[in-house]
């Protein structure tokens, strides 16, 4: 699947011709991320973050496999084995700090990637499947990150595991047995640690598999772009290689500088000191907080402090926390505006920048703070807005909003004019680009 003007793979060397006949892997790469994939020419740096996320997955798998060679998944020695990695394994400190900060950087990148998708409505037809698979990847990442944080078996590992698996106990009737089944006991211990290690090793490969589907689904309609106008002609595109390999290469360099700074000079900045204290079931930390990337959802969980009719507060909190993520699956059908880019949606844009972004930041701040006033009250207001934003405001805005004029094509957006521009039937001016079904013509 591609555009008719896409470059075709033509192997010249005899070996490559031979390989192309037997196993056309180079052809596959050429069409996926090479010169055979035409991409909108106007992508800004926010379109770099998908590549960065893929890069971080590779970093996490490489560092993680090495760590697994030195780590011992046993509640008696797990804590000391991480200290062994830090002290006695050659360059172990680099591998471990790289992996721990790598998880944070992975989430930074993925959050920017997700909010890019939200602002430019990348989830809309014809790209719903890419979005759905992306939410699946995000859920898998959260599960993987949580289980990874348990492995050093420090105080936050233990109590985090206790709190998170405790969420399942809120489910009526089956909750308590379910929690015990998940943990393999009444409280996190060796059984839980071992299965978390096993799953923490497995899930990244599941993520890699879903990423392949994510990219496959991306190559059917092709990449979206900041104008939200679909590709119309060859002048709208450039081949992925060398144009975006070079641009993404520069972005990757900038990102690596930030990543290296964190690993070498601030490796514990995003961590919690309590996790350098060995797990102790008899001593509860003053404030149990998860890693920063869960803070907004942790704040939502803790916002439900009173029973609501017949629903206990704890169950409400659990439903809301999972609901806050699961609602993302329905975005393609909640936002009905035919215009994609927030650039041409005046009302949507206001709610995005002055509603959603501050709300998520406030939720994050409150989630990382102790569960006391005024943080809980503030988080409750933010939680209410979070649900209203996606489930109420977005559908209403998309039906009442008057979009601003849009360019006819990407070429016009970039060059100021497009000689091939034609008036679309039933529209006025050159602003109808995204209204028609602008699917690219599939090549044979």
């Amino acid at each position, binding site marked *: 699947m591609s555009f008719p003007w896409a470059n075709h793979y033509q192997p010249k060397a005899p070996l490559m011709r031979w390989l192309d006949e037997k196993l056309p892997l180079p052809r596959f790469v050429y069409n996926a991320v090479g010169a055979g994939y035409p991409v909108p020419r*106007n992508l800004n740096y926010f379109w770099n973050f998908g590549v960065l996320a893929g890069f971080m997955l590779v970093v996490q798998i490489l560092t993680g496999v090495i760590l697994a060679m030195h780590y011992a998944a046993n509640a008696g020695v797990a804590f000391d084995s991480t200290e062994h990695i830090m002290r006695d394994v050659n360059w172990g400190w680099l591998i471990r700090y790289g992996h721990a900060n790598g998880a944070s950087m992975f989430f930074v990148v993925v959050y920017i990637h997700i909010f890019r998708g939200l602002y430019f409505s990348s989830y809309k037809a014809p790209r719903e499947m890419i979005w759905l698979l992306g939410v699946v990847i995000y859920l898998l990442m959260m599960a993987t990150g949580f289980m990874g944080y348990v492995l050093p078996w420090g105080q936050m590992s233990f109590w985090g595991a206790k709190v998170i698996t405790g969420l399942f106990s809120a489910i009526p009737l089956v909750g308590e047995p379910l929690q015990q089944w998940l943990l393999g006991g009444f409280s996190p211990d060796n059984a839980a640690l071992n299965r978390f290690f096993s799953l923490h090793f497995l899930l990244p490969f599941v993520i890699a598999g879903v990423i392949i589907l994510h990219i496959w689904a991306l190559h059917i309609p092709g990449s979206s772009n900041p104008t939200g106008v679909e590709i119309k002609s060859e002048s709208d595109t450039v081949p992925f290689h060398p144009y975006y390999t070079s641009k993404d290469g520069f972005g990757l360099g900038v990102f690596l500088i930030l990543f290296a700074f964190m690993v070498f000079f601030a490796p514990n900045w995003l961590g919690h000191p309590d996790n350098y204290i060995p797990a102790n079931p008899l001593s509860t930390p003053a404030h149990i907080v998860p890693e920063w990337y869960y803070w907004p959802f942790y704040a939502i969980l803790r916002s439900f402090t009173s029973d609501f009719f017949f629903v206990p507060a704890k169950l409400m909190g659990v439903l*809301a926390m999972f609901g806050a993520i699961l609602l993302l699956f329905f975005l393609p059908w909640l936002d009905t505006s035919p215009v994609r880019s927030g650039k041409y949606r005046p009302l949507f844009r206001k709610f995005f920048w002055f509603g959603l972004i501050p709300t998520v930041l406030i939720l994050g701040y409150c989630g990382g703070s102790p569960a006391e006033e005024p943080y809980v009250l503030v988080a*409750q207001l933010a939680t209410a807005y979070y649900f209203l934003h996606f489930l109420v405001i977005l559908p209403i805005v998309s039906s009442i909003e008057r979009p601003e004029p849009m360019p006819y094509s990407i070429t016009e957006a970039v060059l100021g004019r497009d000689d091939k521009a034609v008036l679309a039937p039933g529209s006025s001016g050159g602003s109808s680009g995204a209204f028609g079904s602008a699917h690219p013509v599939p090549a044979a």
Partner: protein
Amino acid sequence: MVRIFGILAGLFFAVAVMWSFVVGAINFAGEGMPHSVERSFYKHPKELSLASDGVFGNFDKQQLQRGFQVYKEVCSACHSMRLVAFRDLREIGYNEAEVKAIAKGFQVPGVDPNTGEVNTRPGLATDYFPKPFANDIAARAANNNAVPPDLSRMTKARDDGPAYVYSLLTGYQTQPAALLKQYPDAKTPTGLHYNPYFPNLNLAMTPPLTSDGQVTFGDGTKSTVSQMAKDVAAFLVWTAEPKLAKRNQTGWPVLLFLVVLTGLAYMAYQNVWRDKKH
């Protein structure tokens, strides 16, 4: 259909959380900001600057050796250091003979090679620092029901760790009269010691550094209480993160390499896109 269901679900969650908000706000209006003796009298750690601070941080080996001396002569009576081996002391400037001599000065658990009976023997360079108590129960019994924590990772296991250690060691004082006036029930119990740098204000550890000159430093530095506290804090930074100096020293060449690489990548990017407006 999705939208109708979505709007209903959104309103449901919003109303439920606002119900919690109203209940919480009424309680908050009744009780006001949470207050407690810890909130009013807890003090954040004092400022402390060490050679190991910052992105150019390195260890001051003289200071680490002084800190080690304080640990050995004072702290080690109650606090274990189980992740540090005598051989590690080579890193803070002791030579092989000195390390062997230090190790020999400690009795470590051993086994009699003839009878198989458990005994103690003089330490070797490969041994780890021995624990001062046989087990937690013995530790509790000797320390007013508190287990002295292991000091191997202390500065990483507390917020602002080095400053916390320094402040705690120099922060013992008599309970302020204002505290007892405001919270008459909060009198420090017998056997505990008032220290505003400890989160719950009352600490089981008896003040360990009580007088100037308690330790006689080998390098002639005047051993004031503040100096000893500072040196032992510096030593604990090393025990918690022995690779700190190597990490900082490795970081700069890596960053330099990445900056050059990124510069080249930027030029490649500009070159590829030179006649393509975007």
